[in-house]
């Protein structure tokens, strides 16, 4: 199970890559393992849309579960990964790379500070698996 050190994580299993004032968001390796084979991805926001902390940005579905993806930070959506809708299985094979879901311009960079770092998230997933 991978927990890249340069990412931030949420308790609802989203990851965030922050570069300057922009952030990229997806779901973690742990999440895709729990969900199993992903068959569907749909972004529920569009480019230019303003989102608040906790808003839903996407849906992923596997054969046994559907999961809503939420943004832990507020901001403006700058990109949506259309390719992922065509190949949802990337969430399983490349959750931190090809399966990025949305990019946004941060509205309030301080919101990033409360997120878990890689080590804390890994510990969190271990506790939940017990």
């Amino acid at each position: 199970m991978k927990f890249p050190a340069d990412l931030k994580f949420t308790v609802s299993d989203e990851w965030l890559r922050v570069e300057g004032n922009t952030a990229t968001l997806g779901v973690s390796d742990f999440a895709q393992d729990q969900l199993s084979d992903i068959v569907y991805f749909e972004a529920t926001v569009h480019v230019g849309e303003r989102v608040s902390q906790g808003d839903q940005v996407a849906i992923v579905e596997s054969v046994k579960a559907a999961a809503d993806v939420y943004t832990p930070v507020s901001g403006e959506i700058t990109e949506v990964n259309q390719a992922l809708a065509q190949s949802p299985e990337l969430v399983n094979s490349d959750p931190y790379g090809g399966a990025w879901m949305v990019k946004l311009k941060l509205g309030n960079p301080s919101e990033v500070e409360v997120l878990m770092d890689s080590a804390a998230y890994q510990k969190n997933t271990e506790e939940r698996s017990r």
Partner: protein
Amino acid sequence: MAYIPHTAEERRQMLEAIGVESIEELYADVPETVRFPDLDLPDPAAEMEVIEELQLLSGANLNTREAACFLGAGAYNHYIPSVVDHILRRSEFYTAYTPYQPEMSQGTLQTIFEYQSMMCFLTGMEVSNASHYDGATSLAEAVILALNFHQGKRNKVVLSPGIHPQYREVVRTYMQGLQLEIIGDESLQSQPGDHLDERTSLVAVQYPDFFGNIHDYSALAAAAHAVGALFCVVANPTALGMLKPPSEFGADVVVGEGQPLGIPLSFGGPYIGFFTTREEYVRKMAGRLVGETVDSRGQRGYVLTLTPREQHIRRGRASSNICTNQGLMALAVTVYLAAVGKSGLRQVAELCYHKAHYAAAQIAALEGYQLWNSGPFFHEFVIRCPRPPAQINQALVGYDIIGGYDLGSDYPELAGHMLLAVTELNHKEDIDDLVTALAEAAHD
């Protein structure tokens, strides 16, 4: 003990294996103060006695085999080809469970897939689910789909007064916990088109409407789409055997009651609600869905699919909690449509149409009665009666005729009016007898 196979010896062996002296010990967790109540129920009856008792109860009703039925209003007396019940009585179908283990359920799964296909072709839509409880709850589910489609941002639903009154009641019951404005059916003259704006999530109409009228809804559908609302049509499936499908005038969702397709009246249930829509809404659609796939041996097979949609909660939006479909009823519809086929369904529709128009013409010619419908109608029509419909119907029973539906309580503007339905089961003689009886019932 009915249907319990255990011998005393087997019980003894099982208790020993479990490690208790008596079955009573197994209930140790049940609070003693309320345990083992003395139920006031009749003593057990042998099967022979049970069926005799039920025959007496059955006999204490007037049924549509004994009396000519001209009552419709959402449930219709159609002929059911004998093959339907023979297939429904096959144990492998009716004692089977929901097909969650597809390797052992291909019979159920393939028949549902065929049902879905036939309903799509009948309504002109692109996808169908495996059914809802009835036409009324299907309409409620259409409202939920529209609310989800608009992500909870629209809170107005417009219902035509021509939709079955009980269906509109059910929609209101379902939605009572959500802050919605459900309007458009305040009076018979209300026009759905007058209520459309950007807050409208769904506009719904009935085809033919509750009074049997056939309308072209193209303009209304266009107006709904212009404000971004979805357009839902509640359709009669027999009528669809000869009338153009709602897909041709802009429907996004077509729902309705499938009872006319091979399901007996059975005093109101079980029936089946069909639900069909366009492919783009498939993930917003509630209910079970069967999809095609292959097995490990390369054979084409069927499975329940998109199952996470079922019962899944979406934050801040309404969600359907439906956990079932009307399994065996969907099979009945499938067998019926397979039995009557393309030409048979058209024949049934046309027989209903011609007989209804013959009846309407004869009754309209009677003194004291008037035909209320002004435009084209299918197999139901409204007549104004010279005396209260309840009294007319009471007189009709004396002629072994089940009369029409008294519209007064649902539509105050139609007090003194009765809704009559005519199907292929009404012979010309039955209709002529009805006309004679109505003429005589006009006087005290």
